[in-house]
């Protein structure tokens, strides 16, 4: 008999704490599949964030460290510079990377740190209960933008990939999504590509993943997946943003 589906080897036997319809579970699994397929478990070090992804170390059977909110890229920098032979990636949400950790992410990218950032963009602060994030859509209602995000008072959605693309230290930036099977397959390929860029020392790599958050968007999981396509991708267009060398 042929096994067509099983738990990735580098995942522990644990139940996800994520809400129904959340994209984090898919992304967590995709990373694990890539680590398995590239046979990287023995050399990978994961930096877990503050936010919904913070319990990654309960799921990954790989060396993992927690970072303070926003500091993932700095912690990953410290690890990678001391252990250049390891594969080091940081898993960060939009509040984490695009608000409180703007400086750490931007400068790690600008220095061309040989780390990979898995950037989960769901447009809200998930763990704290759905507050407005830097990536929240205009007019989107959140607990802290009850009248909808107003560009005059609350600014515009931050496009991390496009901002980082201006930095010479970045070598691979791609925006993908996990709202449907075809998109999930592309996301897995993008994660693998980011890791290959790191292995080939081309520069800083980042995969931005548009991810549904039904609980805080107050939508059904299915509507959330549709909303990614119908609304989010209009502001955050999918596709390769930058690749300095084919990997």
């Amino acid at each position, binding site marked *: 008999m042929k096994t067509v589906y099983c738990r990735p080897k580098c995942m522990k036997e644990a139940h996800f704490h994520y809400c129904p319809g959340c994209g984090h579970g898919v992304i967590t699994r995709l990373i694990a599949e890539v680590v398995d397929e590239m046979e990287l478990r023995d050399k990978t070090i994961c930096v877990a964030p503050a936010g919904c992804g913070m319990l990654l170390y309960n799921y990954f059977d790989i*060396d993992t460290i*927690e970072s303070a909110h926003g500091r993932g890229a700095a*912690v990953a920098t*410290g*690890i990678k*510079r001391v*252990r250049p032979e390891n594969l080091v990636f940081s898993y960060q949400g939009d509040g984490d990377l695009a608000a409180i950790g703007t400086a*750490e992410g931007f400068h790690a990218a600008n220095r061309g740190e040989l780390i990979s950032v898995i950037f989960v963009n769901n447009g809200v602060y998930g763990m704290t209960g759905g507050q407005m994030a830097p990536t929240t859509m205009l007019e989107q209602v959140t607990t802290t933008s009850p009248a909808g995000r107003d560009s005059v008072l609350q600014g515009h959605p931050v496009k991390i990939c496009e901002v980082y693309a201006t930095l010479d230290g970045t070598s691979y930036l791609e925006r993908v999504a996990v709202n449907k099977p075809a998109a999930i397959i592309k996301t897995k390929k993008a994660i693998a590509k980011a890791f290959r860029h790191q292995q080939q020392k081309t520069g800083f790599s980042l995969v931005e993943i548009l991810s549904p958050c039904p609980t805080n968007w107050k939508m059904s999981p299915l509507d959330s997946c549709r909303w990614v396509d119908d609304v989010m991708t209009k502001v955050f267009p999918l596709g390769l943003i930058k690749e300095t060398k084919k990997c």
Partner: protein
Amino acid sequence: MSGNSAVGEAAVLAGCTAYFGYPITPQNELTEHMAKRIVEVPGGVFIQSESEIAAINMVLGASAAGARAMTSSSGPGISLKQEGISYLAADELPAVIVNMMRGGPGMGNISPAQSDYLQATRGGGHGDYRTIVLAPASVQEAADLVYVAFDLADTYRNPVVILGDGMLGQMMEPVTFTTAAPRKEYPKEYVLSGASGRPSRMIRSLLFDTKEEEEHNWKLFRKYQLMEHNEVRYETFLLDDADMAVLAYGIAARIAKGAIKRLRQEGLKVGLIRPITLWPFPMKIIQETAKQLGDFFVFEMSTGQMIEDVKLALEGKGHIHFYGRPGGVIPTPVELSRIIARHCYQSQRSKKR
């Protein structure tokens, strides 16, 4: 060599291979020394970070990866590092943090001061934790204490603070570096290196289970008790026959020594207790001294911070005199000797009455 450069050089000789810093006066020579020096060491890492917050988090990453890691700053920058220091303590990761204090609060100025005593000795960041605080009084001692700091950090897996000031950092003195005994090997079973041939490891401080967090707090507390028991360091000077004990640390103690020498020439029996570890604080020697004499003179380059620990140590016994010069003012030994003499004479008079 300047105190700043000496601390940097000693750190490299003590096996520090990862330094992360951000420019701030009066400690820049330390960052500059590391920029040149640490990259000469195999695997040496130097990053001028984008902020103090980034620097301390790079230290956290480097420490988790198994390196002897260090950062340095002065008051305002140390405030920014507190987040990371709290995480280092919670994660039980070793690191050395140098604070060359300046006048504060706020922007303050760049002159020598001792305004960060309470911040350094009370943990400084959020949560229930402590850091060992070492206060050198000369360039030589600063260099010597760097070795001690790294060893203590590794022994207890806890951040260690070297608390100097702008004067110590800037002044030039001859210094001998001891490369003495080979470094002890510390257990590194916590280090993240990739889970090759062993179970995966995690470093975290998030403990949702309140019982688990409570036990973690008590575990840290027991470690701090051990430090209090084993790591108290101080120096005494002309204390045996003294009628009054001056309490001062760091550069203030250096000034106090000069003042005491003058006072001795005047026939006033004044001695010195110089805490070298500010935390754990040398309570016992103060309590023992209180059996011999009743007058304690606290001198600080602040409005009075260490005086709180002296009061705690004395538990209401004795009489505490105080002289403070905050804001970056450096009093001369002559000035201090006059103040101490006045207090001595007043005390003698009131005793006669």
